[in-house]
């Protein structure tokens, strides 16, 4: 066997150029397929993380009727047996009670439909954690003018200031990154920029009677910290819910859609506002391992009182996102499929030529006593070599990019970023960390190599010695 492998290895280097071209085509196919897939899956993961893990949770327990009719009348009391079941499930990282209902928000100048969300300020830190999203700096037009008047900025930072005009930041690190500040430049500019962009704002206290307004919404309503907003809605059993609330802080929500409509208040305040007593509309659950979602869902479904409650996973309560991801994913898979198909024909051509130009040699080998089956094995090993080298180098070249692109996701700027945000995506493109998809690209290319071998090698198996000797 080692002799056959040795022969195969020497054979592939007989035509160096063709071997290199074949390897290169496999290399590029694998490389691009992996990188493309990593971008896709990374973006989905990011979307899911932003929308699901950082807001809705993977699973929600609701009143049975709430899913089809999300009215406050279909709310429920949380506690007792249900709480027991949830708290005893080892896969559940956190379960937060929420009240969510639409209302009309108004400041003197603007009004807009908003999603009033009642949260437990302490427990919510483990799910959407609005505290770290409180806006601390804002690059208002006036702030930018003042900064420019006070100091002379390098060209790059000037451009970035323009791009981030009206942008909000929840930390200095985020702002420094956005303006590409570091080292001595950062030290020099920090006091000046801070002075003009610093933004007051506080997270909700446990017994707070104020609200947090999402960033885009606050800009639309022209609501600042310290202002008040009027909320008008429909409460439990059709009572009118109305109230005036001071704005405690602005939160920057990474999902642009939510960022346009979210108003947070404490759970108790929302229950009071909507006249809900101690009822909630959903229990939002985060998991230790998202892959266990289906498992946990069915466990919960099996143990809760299904006459009263239902358990939905994010794919059910956010079907739009699921469809978006699936549609996009199919597009990517088709593209990769076409890429592989082209490569399949390239490999096929290589095998055909390899076999055709060595016909006489095969004839001699079989004449002097080598079985055709062995010959086929040598040829097959040659192709596996080519496939493997192309695959290994392709994966090898993609791997460092994946590490890099996963740890430092590409953050889009300018026009591109705007386009993404308009479509409702966070303009970030991380590469997915190594997972099945990575291995699969390798497996698929090897399958392609094997497929490409079938027909030509079958020809060798059927070859007539006499004809081969005459070639």
């Amino acid at each position, binding site marked *: 066997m080692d*002799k056959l492998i040795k*022969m195969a290895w*020497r*054979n592939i280097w*007989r035509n160096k150029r063709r071997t290199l071209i074949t390897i290169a085509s496999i290399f590029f196919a694998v490389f691009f397929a992996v990188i493309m897939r990593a971008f896709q899956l990374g973006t989905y993961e990011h979307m899911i993380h932003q929308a699901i893990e950082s807001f809705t949770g993977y699973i929600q327990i609701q009143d049975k009727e709430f899913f089809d009719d999300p009215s406050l009348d279909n709310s429920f009391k949380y506690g007792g047996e249900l709480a027991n079941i949830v708290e005893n499930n080892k896969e559940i990282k956190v379960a937060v009670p929420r009240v969510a209902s639409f209302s009309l928000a108004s400041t003197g100048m603007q009004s807009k439909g908003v999603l009033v969300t009642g949260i437990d300020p302490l427990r919510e830190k483990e799910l959407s954690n609005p505290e770290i999203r409180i806006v601390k700096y804002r690059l208002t037009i006036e702030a930018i003018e003042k900064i420019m008047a006070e100091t002379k900025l390098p060209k790059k930072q000037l451009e970035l200031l323009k791009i981030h005009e009206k942008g909000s930041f929840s930390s200095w690190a985020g702002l420094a990154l956005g303006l590409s500040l570091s080292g001595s430049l950062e030290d020099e500019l920090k006091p000046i920029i801070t002075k003009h962009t610093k933004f007051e704002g506080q997270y909700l206290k446990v017994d707070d009677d104020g609200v947090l307004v999402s960033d885009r919404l606050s800009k639309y309503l022209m609501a600042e910290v310290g202002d008040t907003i009027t909320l008008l809605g429909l409460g439990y059993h059709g009572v009118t819910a109305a109230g005036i609330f001071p704005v405690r802080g602005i939160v920057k929500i990474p999902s642009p859609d939510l960022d346009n409509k979210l108003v947070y208040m404490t759970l108790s305040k929302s229950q009071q506002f909507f006249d809900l007593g101690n009822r909630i509309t959903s229990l939002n659950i985060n998991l230790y391992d998202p892959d266990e979602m289906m498992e946990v869902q069915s466990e919960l479904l099996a143990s809760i009182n299904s006459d009263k409650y239902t358990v939905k996973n994010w794919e059910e309560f956010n079907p739009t996102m699921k469809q978006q991801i699936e549609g996009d994913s199919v597009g990517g898979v088709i593209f990769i499929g076409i890429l592989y198909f082209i490569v399949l024909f390239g490999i096929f051509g290589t095998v055909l030529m390899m076999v055709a130009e060595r016909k*006489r*040699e095969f004839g*001699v*080998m*079989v*004449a*002097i*006593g*080598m*079985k*055709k*089956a*062995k010959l086929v094995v040598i040829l097959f090993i040659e192709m596996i070599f080519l496939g493997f080298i192309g695959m290994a180098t392709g994966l090898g070249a993609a791997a460092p990019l994946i590490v890099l692109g996963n740890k430092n996701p590409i953050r889009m700027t300018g026009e591109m970023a705007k386009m993404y945000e308009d479509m409702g995506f966070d303009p970030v493109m991380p590469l997915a960390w190594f997972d099945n998809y990575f291995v699969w690209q390798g497996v698929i290319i090897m399958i392609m190599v094997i497929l490409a071998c079938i027909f030509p090698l079958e020809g060798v198996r059927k070859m007539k*010695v*006499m004809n081969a*000797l005459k070639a």
Partner: protein
Amino acid sequence: MKVIEIENLNKIYKESEIEVHAVNGVTLDFEEGEFAAIVGPSGSGKTTLLNMIGGLDDPTSGEVIVGGSSMSKLKGAELTDFRLHNIGFVFQSYNLIPVLTAKENTEFVMRLQGLSAKVCETRSEELLNIVGLGERMNARPNKLSGGQQQRVAVARALASKPKFVLADEPTANLDSKSTETLLEIMEKLNREENITFIFSTHDARVVKKARRVITLEDGKILSDVTKNGGE
């Protein structure tokens, strides 16, 4: 002892309407230790006959019996195996496997026979020394001259310890010096090791060395002459 018995062997090629009787009712025997040349004009059927003797081509009718067993019963892998263990081949050109060195080419058939690495190595070195290529054992075919390549081919043909060696115009592509060397080696092996050689040729000097000369014409044996006591 008879190594090969050929009985009423025929090969008819049909090309559209025309039938070519390439080998026409040949009956022949070869004894162990023969040094026989098959001669005749181009198209007389030499290659066709040798290929059928070597089990590379199927006769239209008739039989080739090697060492007592008929080859016509064998098919596919069995026939390949039969060739491996009984017949040595030297072709006109491009005999050798390009990616293997002279030594590896010689070892190749022994490896196929399943002999141990040690045995293969010793025997291939010995054979290459006999054909005068002891110094060039690790050269690949493209680094060897045409004559040297043919000598490696002879060494390889002998490596499997076959019952006989078939060579179809082994010297056709060689100059007269190389032809002479190759012939000397074959003769010596025949004389000293009692190896049976059957070869076809156009070359009068090669014919002169043969102890038996079979002349074909239009697929039939025209004459079959055995010289007494060699030259």
